[in-house]
């Protein structure tokens, strides 16, 4: 709950006005039966003047309750939607300070559930508080006092009743809160499963595995259902349970009155009001109970939001450092790295240096740590030990904006976002002109296919770039990477889905047109890195060799083996 306070403060004025309107409409609700009774009495007593006066008041009260009621809804809606949407926004902003590892720990689906479903629960909670909870305690306390005052002798009956119902309530709230916790967890799971299915739908279909997917989801869904039913059972027990307790207490009190009626004959007249007060009390308790349930549910969700808010990003940048781009040099000093949830180091004691403008190739077997190394340069993770410097500054000391300006990293798996091609390219440079778009596309060999679309750069890309071929995706991703002209460019196997011809053209263009850019090329194909100033050979997380193509061919057995597998069948002359 604490987490909401600052948000309510932002809507002080609305909270104040809601409270006032609540007071008015509560007044209207409470006064109305009295007034009505008064009118009825006056009618029976045939007091015409009074009837006319009070009827007019009744009309006034009606209008007042409409106006205050509408205003109450207006302000309550403003608070609810304001608080929830502000909270949602801050939560998302917080998520955007997370490191990649943080996001993965939560999983993107769970985060979506929290931002959508949990927020909905919180919204319901706030609505309950402002539209119901505030006036219920008044009625509850009022009826308790009245019940006791009516027959003071049996004050203990009211206490027993309250104690029993409270006891029941406390047990139930505890149980149900735990279940709401599980409910949200299964919600995460189901969302995760569905998200996973949507991403792998082609695999599911091509292996005819829908039954398996359905079985997995049904299992989770059944478990969620189990929770739902249990919560429902508690509700279904508590409501009639509280009812039964009240009825029994009522009957008991009436019985006691009966047995002692001769000593207290005046008690006859209080039986009916007494019963009415107890029933009002019950009604109020139940409503309060419902509200408490809603709140305990909202609280579970708030805790899940709090979890996000309390997460310390693994990777923290130095906000005080200047935002200007860094230089183009890269230095690894005895860097070792183990993934947060990993057991063995993936990179071991890596040291090397790259001068600005150099082109460096990285080769090595699958899983040898090439992408990991690139991720460290982009500071998606921090090295476990050792130090990385870019442009002479320790990565731990730089400003995030400076680093992003300096390093442009084209990921191994090209990811584009739904939107136009231009939108996607502009992610590399917000204010890129159409000339710049064109140039970047040209360099990435993408303009040829972009030009074929009628809308050229305004062609829409679907989510997961479903309407592009593998190579088209990669080329757009490369174009996005080079459009900003960052001092350091990392291409992580970024031409793997390109045909040989386009691949060669991309390589040549980059070499020619970006002479001052430090280029890190991770590649499986030797031809891609043959001309590099330096090639790093990774083997099982170790830097086993370093040098030019010619040098490595002579000295590095690992490199030689890779090269051997890529040689043409024929000699050049034979072709």
């Amino acid at each position, binding site marked *: 709950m604490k987490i909401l306070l600052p948000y309510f403060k932002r809507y002080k004025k609305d909270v104040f006005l809601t409270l006032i309107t609540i007071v008015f409409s509560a007044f*209207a609700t409470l006064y109305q039966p009295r007034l009505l009774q008064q009118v*009825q009495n006056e009618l029976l007593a*045939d007091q015409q003047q009074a009837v006319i006066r009070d*009827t007019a008041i009744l*009309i006034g*009260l009606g*209008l007042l*309750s*409409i106006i*205050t009621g*509408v205003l109450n809804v207006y302000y309550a809606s403003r608070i609810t*939607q304001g608080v929830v949407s502000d909270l949602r926004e801050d939560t*998302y902003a917080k998520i955007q300070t997370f*490191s*990649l590892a943080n*996001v993965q720990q939560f*999983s*993107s689906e769970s985060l979506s559930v929290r931002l959508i479903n949990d927020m909905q629960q919180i*919204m319901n909670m706030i609505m309950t508080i402002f539209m119901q909870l505030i006036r219920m305690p008044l009625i509850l306390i009022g009826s308790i006092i009245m019940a006791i005052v009516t027959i003071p002798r049996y004050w203990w009956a009211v206490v027993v009743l309250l104690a029993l119902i409270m006891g029941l309530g406390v047990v139930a709230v505890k149980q149900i809160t735990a279940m709401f916790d599980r409910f949200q967890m299964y*919600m995460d799971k*189901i*969302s*995760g*499963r569905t998200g996973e299915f*949507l*991403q792998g739908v*082609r*695999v599911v279909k*091509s292996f005819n595995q829908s039954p398996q997917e359905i079985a997995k989801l*049904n299992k989770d869904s059944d478990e969620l*259902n189990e929770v739902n039913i249990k919560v*429902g*059972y508690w509700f*279904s027990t508590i409501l*009639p*349970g509280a*009812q039964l307790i009240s*009825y029994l207490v009522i009957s008991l009190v*009436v019985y006691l009155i*009966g047995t002692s009626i001769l000593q207290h004959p005046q008690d006859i007249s209080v039986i009916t009001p007494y019963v009415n007060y107890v029933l009002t009390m019950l009604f109020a308790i139940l409503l309060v109970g419902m509200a408490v349930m809603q709140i305990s549910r909202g609280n579970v969700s708030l805790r899940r939001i709090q979890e996000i808010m309390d997460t310390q990003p693994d990777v923290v940048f130095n906000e005080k450092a200047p935002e200007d781009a860094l230089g183009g040099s890269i230095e690894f000093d005895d860097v070792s790295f183990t993934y947060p949830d990993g*057991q063995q180091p993936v990179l071991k004691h890596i040291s090397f240096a790259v001068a600005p403008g150099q082109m460096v190739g990285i080769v090595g*077997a699958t*899983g040898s740590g090439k992408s990991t190394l690139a991720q460290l340069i982009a500071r998606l993770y921090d090295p476990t030990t050792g130090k990385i410097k870019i442009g002479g500054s320790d990565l731990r000391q730089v400003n995030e904006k400076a680093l992003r300006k300096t390093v442009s*990293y084209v990921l191994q*798996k090209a*990811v584009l*976002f*739904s939107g136009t091609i231009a939108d996607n390219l502009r*992610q590399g440079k917000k204010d890129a002109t159409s000339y710049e778009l064109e140039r970047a596309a040209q360099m990435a060999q993408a303009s040829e296919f972009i030009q074929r679309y009628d809308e050229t750069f305004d062609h829409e890309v679907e989510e997961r770039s479903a309407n*592009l071929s593998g190579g088209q995706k990669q*080329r757009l991703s490369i174009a996005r990477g080079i459009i900003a002209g960052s001092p350091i460019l990392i291409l992580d196997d970024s031409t793997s*889905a390109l*045909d*040989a*011809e386009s691949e060669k053209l991309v390589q040549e263009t980059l070499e020619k047109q970006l002479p001052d850019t430090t280029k890190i090329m991770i590649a*499986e*194909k030797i031809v891609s890195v043959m001309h590099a100033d330096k090639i790093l050979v990774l083997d099982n997380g170790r830097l086993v060799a370093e040098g030019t193509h010619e040098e490595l061919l002579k000295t590095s057995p690992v490199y030689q083996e890779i090269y051997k597998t*890529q040689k*043409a069948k024929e000699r050049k002359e034979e*072709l």
Partner: protein
Amino acid sequence: MSDKQKSLTYLTKYLKNYKKPILISVAFYLIVTIAQVIAPSLLGQTVTNLSAFVKGHGSLGVFYQALAWMAGFYAFNSVATYIAWMMMTRFNANANNDMRKGLFGKLQRMTIRYFDTHQDGQILSLFNSDLDNIFNALNNAFFEIISQSLLFVGTIIVMFVINWKLALSVVATTPLILLLSWIIMKKAHVYLDNQQDRVGELNAYINEQLNGENVIITQGLRDQSVAGFKKENAKVREAMFKGQFYSGILNPLVSGFSLLNFAIVIATGAYMIMTKQVSQAAGLGLIVTFTEYSWTYFQPLTQVTSIYSMLQLALTGARRLETVEEQEEENTVPDGKTISGVNDAVRLEDVHFGYTPDKEILHGVSIEVPKGQSVAVVGPTGSGKTTIMNLINRFYDVNSGAVTFDGVDVRDLKLENLRSNVGIVLQDSVLFSGTVADNIRYGKPEASMDEVIAAAKEAQLHDFVMTLPEQYDTPIENGQDNFSTGQKQLLSIARTILVDPAFLILDEATSNVDTVTEEKIQKAMDNVIAGRTSFVIAHRLKTILNSDKIVVLKDGQVIEEGPHADLIKKRGFYYQLYTSQMAFE
């Protein structure tokens, strides 16, 4: 179908399986409602008996008896409530469970085209928001509506029986209220609909952004991403505010009107007395009675309007879900032919195809893959290679021409049969949550551990798996894959090797795998491929040199075709590709 019809179709579809519990619980609830109306008179009886006793013409025994009746009645009432609620809880939860399963099951049957053109998050929001809305509404509103309608109708009947003129005065404002409510509800409906659509969009945005978080971070797009979120969020806020406001004001309006109505009743009564239609004494009594009725008459209206937004959100949810359930499904060709293995050839016969009507991608492609042969397809990116695979596996269907297996059009084959004969290693590899072993045997869940290991060995994945903390039992959590890109591809290959398909399609299966490993796989696969019909798409020409035939596809047309040596001799497009990629001594 109109929106309302859609919602109702949806709800009836899922509730009709619970006819019996619904009827029983409704019956119990009706009893409870009636009991609540009767209870006060039993109390009255008890009081009467007691006062009779006090006055001396009765015994305490009669009072006890009445009291016992009352207590029994109360107890019965609680028990009936309990039963009604228990049953309602069950069928509501179960129906909701059916809806969730139904939706997921529906997704399983939908076409690839749907998924290619819709955002995941939109679908997720049906799970995250709409299903929940329906559940809440049924839970809170189901009995409420029943008992309130009963009270409503009951009150009307009783009123008209007693005095129809005054009864008319009670219902006099109702048309006005209905009109007003109708106008407001129409507005609220629009905004609540709008609200759920915006929530869907927000969910889609979040889902896409977070799934691409590595791009967001490395491209320095965090601020932009937050800005985009704010925009979507503001739309949600706007829609939700309007939805909550318009649906919320119904209640104070109606309860305000109930007060105004008293005035009308009183005025009508007064008029009747003045015009001597009733005697003054009787008239006054009537007015008092009817002000009471006016109160009971409005109770149901106020109660129901207070849960209106819940109801409307459920209807909106039902409509959104029904819209998905109405989507076209894959034609599974239930009474189609079946084949087992390829006995002659797989052929593309003059295939024309485009994803959209206005843009053809394949322009009359014919390719033959004879039994036992391996045919490679190479060509520039975007030339249509993956598209061909989409057609063979019927992710999409040809516009004209045909894909045939042993002369049978794939559209005449049972879909499941076709796909079980075709094994594909897709260009993009995906992992599912579960263990490593579960992932390898994904296509054949009943496979033994030995089979799993054998497949992993062939795909050169075994050594890596053995380095994992729990080897084959290492869990893969969604979104948290601890595999390198190449390793994922190896796993996809192992997955396909394990199911041992008759017709194998490799779509750049090793594009991210290093060439040393690739060569090893190739050797292992040579054994697998030997005698197997296969179709290999590759940019790395080294892997396809030994294919029986290489087809060069460019701009959706076959431009060259033949074994490696022939194509080299031809000095055409293939020659160019080959020389630009290979390292030469």
